[in-house]
């Protein structure tokens, strides 16, 4: 066996990939060749150091969710809408309408649909180059950017001092309407804050829901609907919403 051959085969020896006959041949060469013996020792040492090092990456939760979202549902539950369609076939629908149940069912269904649109918009934004239309950590740059693009510009509040960095803004579409998205980062995690106008001025307290592995906290305030979506934990997202609400109140009153 030549040294050239041995320098290739010693790796197969290290990896336990040689049959007994070839292993003996390589070992016999190494026993009589200091150069190849030193190479084997050095490679064994490197393999040891590598084995002690974490060289693997963990797929981000958002990637897992994106892939999950692209798979067909394991068992497709009939949606409220298709249940309603089933009702509509029969005569029960008029009775239901009379009791107002149809309206309630539809409203919940709409909220679920909008929530899923919000999460989809969040997912889209995570794709390369889709996160922001205007990139700035300065609220006085981001806020005017929305003017004229939307009926009502979303409140843009810098929360960097509170641990949530403003990174920019974007126009998005939810429920077939253009809405503003204000983008924040917490460490490497993106938070999209979607803001849309609503006819209702009542205060709706924040509520967290989970969809496709993302936390979504939504609330209503001063004629605006808010959805904050991120893969950060529910408690951190609640903290974000608290900080945002406190700062918004201060802005309005100050």
């Amino acid at each position, binding site marked *: 066996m030549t040294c050239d051959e041995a320098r290739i085969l010693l790796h197969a020896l290290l990896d336990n990939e040689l049959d007994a006959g070839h292993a003996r041949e390589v070992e016999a060469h190494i026993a009589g060749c200091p150069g190849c013996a030193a190479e084997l020792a050095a490679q064994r040492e*490197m393999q040891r*150091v590598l084995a002690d090092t974490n060289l693997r990456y963990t*797929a981000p939760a958002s*990637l897992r969710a994106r892939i*999950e979202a692209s*798979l067909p549902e394991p068992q497709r539950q009939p949606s409220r809408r298709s249940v309603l369609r089933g009702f509509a076939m029969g005569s029960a629908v008029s009775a239901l309408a009379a009791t107002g149940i149809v309206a309630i069912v539809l409203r919940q269904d709409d909220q679920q649909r909008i929530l899923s649109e919000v999460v989809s918009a969040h997912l889209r934004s995570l794709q390369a180059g889709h996160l922001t239309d205007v990139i700035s950590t300065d609220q006085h740059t981001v806020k005017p950017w929305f003017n004229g693009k939307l009926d009502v510009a979303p409140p843009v509040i810098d929360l960097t001092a509170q641990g949530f960095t403003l990174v920019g803004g974007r126009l998005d579409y939810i429920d077939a309407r253009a809405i503003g998205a204000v983008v924040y980062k917490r460490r490497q995690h993106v938070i999209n804050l979607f803001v849309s106008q609503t006819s209702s001025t009542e205060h709706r307290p924040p509520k967290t829901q989970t969809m496709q592995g993302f936390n979504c906290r939504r609330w209503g305030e001063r004629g605006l609907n808010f959805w904050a979506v991120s893969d950060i934990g529910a408690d951190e997202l609640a903290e974000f919403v608290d900080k945002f609400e406190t700062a918004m109140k201060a802005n309005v009153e100050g």
Partner: protein
Amino acid sequence: MPPTSDDPDKARRFREAALPHLDDVYTLARYLLRDASDAEDAVQECYLRALKHFDSYRGPAMKPWLFAILRNVCNAEYARRAHRPSALEDTPGAAEQTPIWQESEASPETEVLRSRDAGAIRKLIEALAEPFKETFVLREINNLSYREIAETVGAPIGTVMSRLARARALLRAAWTAEEEQAK
């Protein structure tokens, strides 16, 4: 949009077979593409293609099969990055000419590699030329057997062996060179 006409049972089988390997596939993508967001896009595309071809899947093992699909996706990405060299299929130039081994003047004692932080070692691996890098990552990080690597990259086992030997020699040379500089 999820393909609604698909058999839910197929989706369930695919999920159980393919999703446990997500970290492995993502790890390979990170090393091949050297960019987190490109890697995410490639892995997502890989899983979409895998689902599409899942009906005709008869083996090899799931992990090498996913890796083979990911390689194709990454090759397409390399083709798209026209300004970046070294597509996986390219015959490497300078790296191929580097001898697998060089006699070192240092004695074996002084050659003992110092432990480095994972980030520094990942960078050294990322910087390896193809096709040595993919061979190295498939073996050393993804724990594929030589036969599985051969199936994944579509090369004979002898080629896998010589690429792996060269990959390790290149890595060790880069590693010791960095330590020399650090002195």
